[in-house]
């Protein structure tokens, strides 16, 4: 499904701010894998997702999606294969456009933008049904501007948008980090449901070790731009937060200091 071969990325090379963000990442995802990604601040988790999505070109290595080499193509062309939900609820939707218009934009991911109508009445009916299933009351606010929605509502909508054109790969970058615990749980449950329903392959970055253990069938831990732990199947099911903390201290040599992870 997704194959990363020796990916490298250095930011600000040759300057005092030089940062080797990705340091030879090798990773193969199987069809239907739901992988959670954990690691300390600056470990390269978000950088990894941005590299896969094509936010900027990588320095070295190959990225293959379904055996198609996407290393050389820019973000908007890669988007044909990839659905994304960002950490910032503002990032995933167009605030000044209506809810139904946002969905219509997402429904055209990977397609040429022609001079046909941007949204059809048939689509509007479908979107209403989908929004009904979200159970957030959005089905009655189809023509409201997305900027009026709460963070949780926006993330739920972004999830729906990201999965509308069934993507080969779903990238979730700490998409519940900016939400309150109750809303975060709701959005996570929705994530599980959407991934299962559409049998999606997904990478989910999280700071919450409990979530990382409870969701998905595989877990990877990153440190200093490398994958230091890759656990799946039965082994992952038995995993505890203590195991992960111990492992983290072992590889990084420091105590895990993120409050978010400890409080979870």
């Amino acid at each position, binding site marked *: 499904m997704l194959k990363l071969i020796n990916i490298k990325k250095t930011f600000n090379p040759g300057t005092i701010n030089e940062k080797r963000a990705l340091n030879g990442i090798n990773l193969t995802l199987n069809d239907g894998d739901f992988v959670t990604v954990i690691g300390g601040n600056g470990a390269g988790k978000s950088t990894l997702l941005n590299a896969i999505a094509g936010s900027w070109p990588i320095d070295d290595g190959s990225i293959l999606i379904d055996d198609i080499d996407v290393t050389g193509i820019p973000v908007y062309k890669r988007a044909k294969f*990839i659905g994304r939900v960002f950490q910032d609820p503002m990032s995933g939707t167009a605030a000044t456009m209506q809810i139904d218009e946002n969905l219509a*934009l997402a429904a055209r991911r990977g397609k040429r933008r022609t*001079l046909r*109508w*941007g949204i059809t009445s048939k689509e509007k009916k479908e979107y209403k049904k989908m929004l009904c299933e979200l159970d957030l009351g959005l089905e009655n606010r189809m023509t409201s501007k997305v900027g009026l929605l709460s963070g949780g509502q926006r993330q739920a909508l972004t999830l729906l948008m990201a999965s509308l054109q069934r993507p080969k790969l779903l990238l979730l970058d700490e998409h519940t980090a900016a939400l309150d615990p109750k809303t975060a749980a709701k959005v996570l449950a929705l994530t599980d449901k959407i991934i299962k329903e559409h049998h999606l392959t997904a990478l989910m970055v999280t700071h919450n070790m409990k979530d990382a253990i409870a969701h998905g069938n595989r877990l990877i831990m990153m440190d200093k731009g490398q994958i230091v732990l890759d656990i799946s199947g039965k082994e992952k099911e038995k995993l505890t937060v203590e195991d992960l903390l111990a492992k983290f201290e072992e590889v990084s040599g420091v105590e895990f200091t993120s409050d978010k992870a400890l409080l979870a």
Partner: protein
Amino acid sequence: MCTFISLGSSIPNINQLFNALPGNIAQGLIWGLLALGVFITFRLLDFPDMTVDGSFTTGAAVTVIAILNDVPVPIALVIAAIFGIIAGLITGILHTKFGIPAILSGILTQIALWSINLMIMGSANVALSVDNYSLIISARNINSAIIIGLIFCTVIISILYWYFGTEQGSAIRATGSNPTMSSASSININLMKIIALCISNALVALAGGLIAQYQGYVAINMGQGAIVIGLAAVIIGEVIGNAILGKKMNFIARLFFIVLGAIIYYTVICIVLWLKMPADSLKLFTAITVAIFLAVPYIKGNKTSSFKAAGKKSKLIHGGQKNA
């Protein structure tokens, strides 16, 4: 611009004002086209495009020179629009391909166009008499000028309403609203910016071509401050539209109110001139008008939510201790 002949009396004559108004409506309608172009870049694309001051004169220059060379007027206007498209394309390429900031890209094109406009015109002023050529719009016949202006505005508004409802138009609006999300939705945001800049400057050049015919000449400096007038029309139109329609303000209403904003702007200018304000201070007046219309919504918003108001309320609660 409307002019008032002093009749020896220092008291402004109301009849003079009424006589001058239709001309300002006609001018406002033509400038409305420019304002629609400015709206596309400033509002939809969130790109402050300074190309306008140059491409407006380019449109006028190309139209006048083409007509003087016996090109039929409609074709001359099409050529003017094409020159506008090229101007927008250059600004777009400077910004997207060479990473030059939006404002600076526009300014560079604008400056370059000054020389190009002079090359097209051959001198700083070129006259185009309605007596010798069959112009489609002229200050000589104001009633017909208003009708032609109305036709142009209605057609352009219809086309814009249709276009920004299509998949491509929606992609342009999305690019202006959230570039990150647009890229993630497989929209080529650089291409969308270039397309929007081309459409915008085509409208601006078309407006230039019509104004040149209306006033019967093209002058090298006629585009100076055009961007501010366009912006004034957009803001006046939006403020008034929001005041009248409130939440019912939709896209097509917005487009109409922008043209209305241009008409109101020219009417106000006319009143100011009628009040015997010296014509030299018009630019100062324009700047003040735009500043006022920009400030009104902000101050109105502050009325409901300001530190001053919160401080006063707080004092009432605890009975007036000293503020920090």
